[in-house]
């Protein structure tokens, strides 16, 4: 069974009297364990497609089936629950919670899931160590470099063992070495834990790590390349 199934997905934004077609009849299937990259120029629809798959936004038309569940049938609360339990997010601007330490940021999702404190703490430490942040557990985001913050974000995204991690330009704010390290880390986590990763990028070096590259242009899939 596909983890993601998009059928005729369209998203049109209405800005005052102007209509902007962000996605135009996109159909796409992704199987569990894939490491997929959405690439394309700005405005091609990468982020919109990620947002729709992540149940952060709803399509104007078409459907998204996520792990067998049609997102259009879910209430707001059910969508929140789905995001909490099945999807991990990594954002371009890291978007860690500034009042929480690295460990607490990672624990946050597990806390919401109702996981016991001792298990939360153990898993958060394990994941932070696995992303190379040993010794930085108690630092707040403001005390970490951009690369370190994004590692914390990746740790937060994978710690609750989601079926899918969506990363929107995760390396855009990082230098090339750090970017390669991060994407290499994501790839190793994909191979180690079998988590499906979908990330958007327009960095050719980063997209080289992907096993499947979906090229978007003007809201439509232009080409798909499998490594």
């Amino acid at each position, binding site marked *: 069974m596909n983890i993601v199934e998009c059928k005729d997905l369209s998203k049109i934004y209405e800005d005052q009297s102007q209509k902007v077609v962000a996605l135009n009849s996109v159909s796409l299937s992704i199987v569990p364990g894939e490491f997929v990259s959405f690439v394309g120029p700005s405005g091609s629809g990468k982020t919109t497609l990620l*947002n729709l798959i*992540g149940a*952060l*936004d709803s399509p104007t038309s078409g459907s998204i089936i996520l792990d067998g569940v049609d997102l259009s049938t879910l209430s*707001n*609360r059910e969508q*929140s*629950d*789905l*995001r*909490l*339990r099945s999807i991990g*997010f990594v*954002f371009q*601007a890291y*978007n860690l*919670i*500034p*009042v*929480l330490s690295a460990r607490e940021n990672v624990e*946050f*999702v597990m*806390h*919401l899931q*109702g996981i016991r404190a001792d298990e939360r703490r153990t898993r958060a430490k394990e994941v932070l160590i696995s992303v190379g942040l040993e010794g930085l557990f108690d630092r707040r985001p403001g005390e970490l470099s951009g690369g370190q913050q994004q590692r914390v974000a990746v740790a*937060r995204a994978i710690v609750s063992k989601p079926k899918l991690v969506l990363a929107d330009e995760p390396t855009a704010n990082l230098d090339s070495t750090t970017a390669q390290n991060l994407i290499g880390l994501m790839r190793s986590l994909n191979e180690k834990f079998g988590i499906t990763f979908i990330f958007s990028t327009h960095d050719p070096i980063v997209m080289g790590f992907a096993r499947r590259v979906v090229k978007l242009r003007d809201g439509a899939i232009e080409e798909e390349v499998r490594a």
Partner: protein
Amino acid sequence: MKSILLLFEFAFRNIWRNPKRSIVTLSAITVGICSAVVLSSIARGLSRGMAENAIKTLTGHIQIHAPNFLDDPTPDKSMNLLGANEISFLTQNGIKKIAARVRIPGMAMSERESYGLVLVGISPIEESGVSFISEAPIEGRMLTSESDPGIVVGQDLLRVLKTSVGKRIVVMAQSSEGKIADRGFKIVGAFSAELRSTEKSFAFIGRSVAQEMLLMNHNVSEFVLRIDNAEKVAPIVEKIQARFPEFEIKSWQELEPLVMALRKVQDGFLIIWFFIVVLAVSFGVINTQLMAIFERTRELGVLMALGVTQFQIVIIVCLESFLMLVIGVLLGNALGLCGVFYLRHGIDLTAFAAASEQLGFARIIFPHVFPRDWLICDLLLFVMGILGSFYPAYLASRLNPVEAISGRA
């Protein structure tokens, strides 16, 4: 909710993200609550002083009279002294002190002036702990027994009658037979009281002397009772009324309608005052939360993306308000207590003695902490603050996560 502790801690940390703004808001809450509770304590102290004055003057907590005595206080409406069984009943029902008095309107005449007053026949021993007279400052001496032939009047009456301690006055009153009884008394003492009206209105003679003068045998006009807590008088009055159905039993609250009316006015005034303070402070809290929401739009979007529900977003925002209110209210109450403690020796209104006399206020107001007022004020602020913060909380919960994360919200 499983995650309530997390949200609590999260909310607490969020408060201190912008310490300056939080401190300003907390200061507003603290000062608002402090002013409300200190002023309410002063107002309560004022009415309490009035009540205490009235109770201590001659009213006591409870009075027992023959029927219709209060409407027409003549010597024929009198009662026998209480027997051992009756006194035992009263003491078993919370009565701590009992004073039996003869109390009749009369007229005092000196060589130069005459003045209408209330002639009170007392047993000086019984009055101890019941009325002010046993401990009032006296020029000359107090009555030594209920058969003391002298009379003790107020300083102001001396002035009105243009006489002095050691001189004689004649007192006239209606006897139990309906005839005019008069008798000459030597002024053995002149008392000072909190209110001038008290000094002018009452003259004290021995109870036996009064009974003899007014042909009352051993009867008395009233029994004045004291209990421990003036506010818990109603159930005791009920019990005594049930035991003595032939008499009129009145609480001090019925005997002092002016004090009670002032209390009611005060209750209304305080609620309005609390409401204004709380409303002003609530707007401060709402404004702070609105600012916090606008500053944290992106973060709220991220929280939603991570799986925080709209309801949990509402909880987070309301918890922040709640915690701010808790801290502010605690500080406000603590500061208020300090204020009341600072004023513990009283606010001296001697400079405004004439005005305070007119209104029946004591010359010194001792602030009185009335926990119910503080509780009402605190609760009102919590309710208004939390209700008010539902607006920013609602706005936060309706954010579109995509727009919030991208900064377009």
